[in-house]
């Protein structure tokens, strides 16, 4: 290398360092592992978000006001769990089992599959009061019952859609139309990522693929870096994490050292800070090759923790494992973890399948709340549990199924400054209409953003000449949910 090349390299390094310091807010070592937005691509257009777009789109940003929660674990129960079997006791429905619903209930009503005027179906499981709050929960939820004093139950949820894909997309992105950013993406866009070695928004899946597909956790029109990254239960936890066959760790290191050196030379020649970002991205990939398997390796967890979650085989990929992984992820600074468990679409076989689903999910969901609490993480972690809609009080098929129902259903929240041992809202005697304190999807999302320190009307991103937001033009913060 000649002198002038040396000088250029030195200058480029200085330049790139300055760029990192100025635009990323952190030194190279501390760069958020996930990603860097290419310098030559268009930065997000000016938006009303307080955070000014900077070189590193994942730099930690302050929200609009002091947040109650810093991170989110969202346990999405896809397929739509029956509120009538799990959360919302309806003795009157038991009494009227087999009778037709009152006609006034069905005005302008549309279910997905069934004729609205179908017989009522009594709840299949018993309810009892639990905890100091005395909240009634189903016998299917013995573990959730034990933590009910930590939960904020919303029994007055409402949504617009009655088909799975649109309803899942609505719940996750605030719109029935595909192409909008998910709640997790908005969160990452608004807050950035604290994780040094892992993506800021991680997705964990169990059961089968969801109706909404990848769009449930997509970034929509936000830059790609804000999208959810699935960590997979089988094969490579992160796609293409493993080296090709035959390439061991030293060979990988030697390869990356060579690549680093060659890219350094290119940086000296071209002076493009983007090359420095590329070098960093390869180094972060290398770190991820260590940190991701370490994260996924539950064998280091003590037996009592595995017992708490009900994990028998630490290698088996399932919902319980995902719950424990969620805790490990947020401990490592991941901003948003979303679980998807697509199993709740009980048009038939309601009794048996809802029982199985609860066996699969009840213990671990509750364990996660318990575990967060005992680690002091629950206070500033927002935990959300729920699906895209509820189920009809009317029967579908013979006598063991329920159709989609959008007018009233239940979700639960925990942590993040919300009330504990609290029940918000109520439905009528049939679990059909909300009779008290309705909470629409948009209200829920406005509230969740509020917990994260955002005025939902001001967390916006300009696209197509319009300032888009998670709540579109709707949503009221449900202040009554906060402690």
């Amino acid at each position, binding site marked *: *290398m000649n002198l002038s090349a040396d000088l250029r390299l030195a*200058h480029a390094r200085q330049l790139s360092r300055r760029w990192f310091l100025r635009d990323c807010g952190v030194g190279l070592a501390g760069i958020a592992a*996930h*990603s860097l*937005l*290419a*310098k*030559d*691509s268009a930065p997000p*257009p000016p938006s*009303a978000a307080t955070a000014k777009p900077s070189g590193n789109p994942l730099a930690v940003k302050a929200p609009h006001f002091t947040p109650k929660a810093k991170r989110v674990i969202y346990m999405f129960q896809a397929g739509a769990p029956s509120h009538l079997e799990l959360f919302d006791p309806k003795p009157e429905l038991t009494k009227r089992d087999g009778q037709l619903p009152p006609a006034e209930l069905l005005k302008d009503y549309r279910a*997905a*599959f069934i004729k609205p005027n179908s017989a009522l179906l009594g709840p299949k499981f018993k309810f009892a009061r639990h905890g100091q709050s005395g909240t009634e929960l189903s016998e299917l939820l013995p573990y959730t019952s034990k933590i009910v004093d930590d939960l904020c139950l919303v029994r007055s949820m409402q949504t617009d859609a009655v*088909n799975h*894909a649109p309803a899942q997309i609505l719940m996750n992105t605030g719109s*029935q*139309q*595909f*192409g909008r950013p998910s709640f997790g993406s908005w969160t990452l866009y608004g807050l950035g990522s604290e994780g040094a070695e892992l993506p800021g928004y991680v997705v964990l899946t169990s059961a*089968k*693929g969801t*109706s*909404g*597909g*990848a769009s449930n956790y*997509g970034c929509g029109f936000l830059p*790609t870096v804000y999208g959810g*990254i*699935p960590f*997979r*239960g*089988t094969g490579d936890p*992160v*796609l*293409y994490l493993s080296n*090709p*066959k*035959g*390439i*061991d760790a030293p060979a990988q290191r030697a*390869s990356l050292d*060579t*690549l680093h*050196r*060659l890219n350094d*030379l290119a940086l000296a020649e*071209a*002076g493009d800070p*983007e*090359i420095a970002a*590329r070098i960093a*991205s*390869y180094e972060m*990939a290398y770190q991820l090759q260590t940190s991701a398997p370490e994260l996924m390796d539950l064998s280091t967890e003590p037996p009592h923790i595995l017992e708490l979650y009900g994990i028998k085989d630490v290698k088996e990929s399932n919902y319980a494992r995902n719950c424990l992984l969620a805790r490990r992820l947020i401990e490592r600074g991941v901003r948003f973890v979303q679980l998807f468990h697509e199993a709740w679409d009980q*048009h038939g076989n309601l009794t048996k399948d809802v029982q199985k689903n609860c066996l699969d999910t009840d213990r671990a969901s509750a364990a996660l709340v318990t575990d967060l609490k005992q680690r002091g993480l629950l206070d500033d972690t927002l935990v959300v549990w729920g699906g895209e809609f509820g189920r009809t009080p009317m029967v*579908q098929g013979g006598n063991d199924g329920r*159709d989609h129902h959008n007018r009233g259903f239940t979700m639960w929240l925990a942590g993040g400054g919300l009330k504990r041992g609290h029940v918000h809202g109520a439905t009528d005697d049939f679990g059909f209409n909300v009779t008290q304190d309705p909470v629409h999807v948009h209200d829920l999302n406005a509230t969740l953003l509020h917990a994260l320190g955002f005025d939902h009307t001001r967390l916006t991103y*300009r696209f*197509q*000449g319009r300032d888009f937001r998670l709540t579109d033009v709707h949503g009221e913060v449900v202040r009554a949910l906060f402690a």
Partner: protein
Amino acid sequence: MYRLAHLLALSVSLFTVAAASAAPTGNAIDFAREVQPILAENCLHCHGPDAQDRKAGLRLDTRDGALQGGKSGVATIVEHKPADSELIARILSTDEEDMMPPPKEKKTLTAAQIDTLRRWIAEGAPYTSHWAFTAPVQAPLPLSPPLSAARPLPPHPVDAFIAAKLPAAGLAASAPADPATLCRRLFLDLTGLPPSPADVDAFVAAAAQGLAPAVEALITRLLAGERYGEKWARVWLDAARYADSNGYEKDLPREQWAWRDWVIHALNRDQPYDQFLIEQIAGDLLPQPTQDQIVATGFLRNGMINEEGAIIPEQFRIEGVVDRLDCLGKATLGLTLQCAQCHTHKFDPITHDDYFGIFAFLNNTYEAQSWVYTAEQQQQIAKLKNDLRAVDDRLKKAEPQWSEKFAAWENQLRTDRAATLWTPLVAAEMGSTSGLNHPVQLADHSILTEGHPSTKGDIFVIATPDLAGATGLRLEALGHDDMPFGGPGRSLYGTWAISELEVTAQLPGTTTWEKVALKNASADFAEPARALEREWDAAFDKEQRRTLGPVAFLIDGSNDTAWRADRGPGRRNTDSVAVVQFAAPLAFPAGTKLRFLLRYHHSGDDNGRHNCMLGRCRLSLTTTPDPRAAPVDYAAVLALDPPADQRTPRQSDALFTAWRASDPSLKKFVTEADALWKKFPAATTSVLHLTERSPADTRATRLLDRGAWDKPLHPVAPHVPTALHALPADAPANRLTLARWIADRRSPLTARVAVNRVWQSLFGTGLVETAEDFGTRTPVPLHQDLLDWLAVDFMEHGWSQKHLVRTLVSSRTYQQTSRATPAQLERDPRNQYLARGPRFRADAEVVRDVALSIAGLLSPKLGGPSIFPPIPENVLSYNYSKVTYWDVPTGPDRYRRSLYVFRKRSMPDPMLSAFDAPNGDFSCVRRIRSNTPLAALTGLNETILVEAAQAFALRLWREGGPTDADRATHAYRLATARPPRPAERDAVVQLVTATRTRLRQGELKAGDIAFSVLTRPADLPADATPIDLAAWTIAARVVLNLDETLTKN
């Protein structure tokens, strides 16, 4: 205290301004550049075009509105008198009630902005319309910098505009890129593939004789090649939200690649852009449209299709039209039409009504699917039709009285038909027993079943007919252009099979349904009894019990038998009829409900792809004794309805053919025709497209309240926003008119948007950065003069996209070195002034194609079906519907260009999406580039890229030269078009040497590294060992991941 200080600062600046305006500097305020953005950002949300939400009745987007003021009657702007203008008073006010923008908006104008507004009012508050809504005009080229020995030629127009703005920014143009880099840049931009070392050598040699002619020659060569169309098709495919699956929950695969092929060919033959648009928006409405023009209209059908169980099809049809508008707006007009779906646009002059005015142009359509034949097959079909006509001609010659006989037969048919009176059933209730489908009854009483493709499902109709003594029931299977190939069925061929037809009755006051016995089924046509084809295999019928054929199967009480009337290729998409008799005339009391059930039990598995549903049918009753279906093709019977002179050729044909079949003496001709039909070719693919509804079946558009599909309000006629150019006065209100309006030379937007998109592809950022939005919130671009010059030039050169590309890449601006000096980075970090050449990571597809190309693996095959790349099992298995068709090729197709990689919407391709390829959920006219560790992992470890590294190593061994240094040099030349600098070469050689040592010592296994599942040691050249190959595979993997390999430099 803070507030006071703030106010003081403000007043000081205002004072300064007053002084300044007293002594004008001579520079008048430019409304479009300086004032409009302030109003758009701070005022128009409440004081804009949307009358519904307008506050205080005040609008500031028009001058009249601003002068007139709001409801208060106070003039918001008083010309030349900022001090008297309420606008300024309100902005300066600190009273929370009065101040504007109101405190809750949390928007504050800067002192400079207020100053601008004051000066603008002082100058008379002139308004000009939004820059992008005024047709582009070519300004004279800026005065060129003095010619010098280095610049003997008059400047290129692009350079003239760019150069004019450099000095003020403290910048100067860069030197040209070195010829090798320029050669690679041109290859990547014009073909999406890297040059071979021979290409580079030839160009460098030619450039030594003269750079400009060498560049011109290379541009000419590359624009003439087929790769050009493949490269640029990708840009349009993004805008057109192309994908190979339907999206939503089911996300079933679709056949749409014929449209993709059309785009490639249209670009390669440089079809004028206006025609390119017209054919895609309304090709079907052109006179005698060709198959290609039908295929072109696939553009508007690239959107998603919801096939989830139990959906209301109309809801998602509306969603589909909304998506079409969004796509059209972004791709052609740069208008965010979607903003006016729920209310009048907040910023742009597009009213809620205007939105549905454009909607109406697209709403009067069928969502059709047609076969796509090869050129050879089209000739075959043309010949076949000729031969069929010849048969008819021979018949007419042999039977001179044919015309009288035909007429007599027709009269007889009419008489026979009139003998049985049929009364269509009016459904009181319709549905499917599974709940998966929600059929609807149309005005002609036919019943349409769309939405979920049910593999096993029964459709029922309940009616309370007032028809005592009914003797029979007629079931008509009727075509419909929403069905594949016109139906009447919904199968892969537009066919159907009905396993059973059942009728039950519920007497008034009872709740049970009693079976009504049926007898004597007859039909116009049925296949002979036969086993069901294997194509419809289903898990519930492993024993293959199911058969089909005669109409008797319809009422034989067995779900295993079905009536089907598939007349074979070329003739199968036609109407059919069956008549069944009640065992005894119906004698139910008035008010009895009849339930008619069509059972479907002959579908195949595979998530509905192999359903056999009937898409449209009509049920009717008669009291005429002994009703039967005449053995005459039902299409002919239906053709009796229009008067002879109003029949379509297809209807006339149906009648003639039916007559021919009815006369035993003409059997010879029937046999000849049947033999010809057997030769009808089977198409290998099809296309989803739009067709205009027939005049008898038009769909009127109503404005939808807040855009909600089930809240229609008043009717809206097709029209376009008044702020844009007008529609031709006498043109019919159809899609073709809309297409021509979009592609009109008077359009202020169409050419600008197209030019901008091409510019964006070449330079990384558009002249208008928001390629999807040229509306009022888009400020006047820095280089509007250049954009407009190019837009006019584009149109004046016959909308030639190749001319446009050539213009841009032949500029010095494009050809500059991309090396960034510290001063340039400091003054213009994002290269808006273009004092240096473009440098950015290539698009996902180019990244993959470059690797395959360098490796020597890339298949040159052009066009055709998509290919299935290897996908990790943990991705493939995580789909809502099981993916049964993912057959990964092991031959050359494995390495086809990325353009041909199957795009499954709910499972974005992991390799391409890591590099920011969109998944086709919606129209994308601007990709945002990211640079992530996930992309790095993909580059290092993805299956195809690893195979590319192995093949690259083999190639280096074969052609790189005798030493590792030679091979390193060749590797760099292949990947970056230049030889490595010594330090680079040495680094690569060091890696090879060190790896070789480890391999020799047995620390690494050569076979594992050097070979994939598809390659073997036997493939090695004689002089190579697996250790050599393994060492070079590792080095090749590094070279494939070089920043410079991934980047357009």
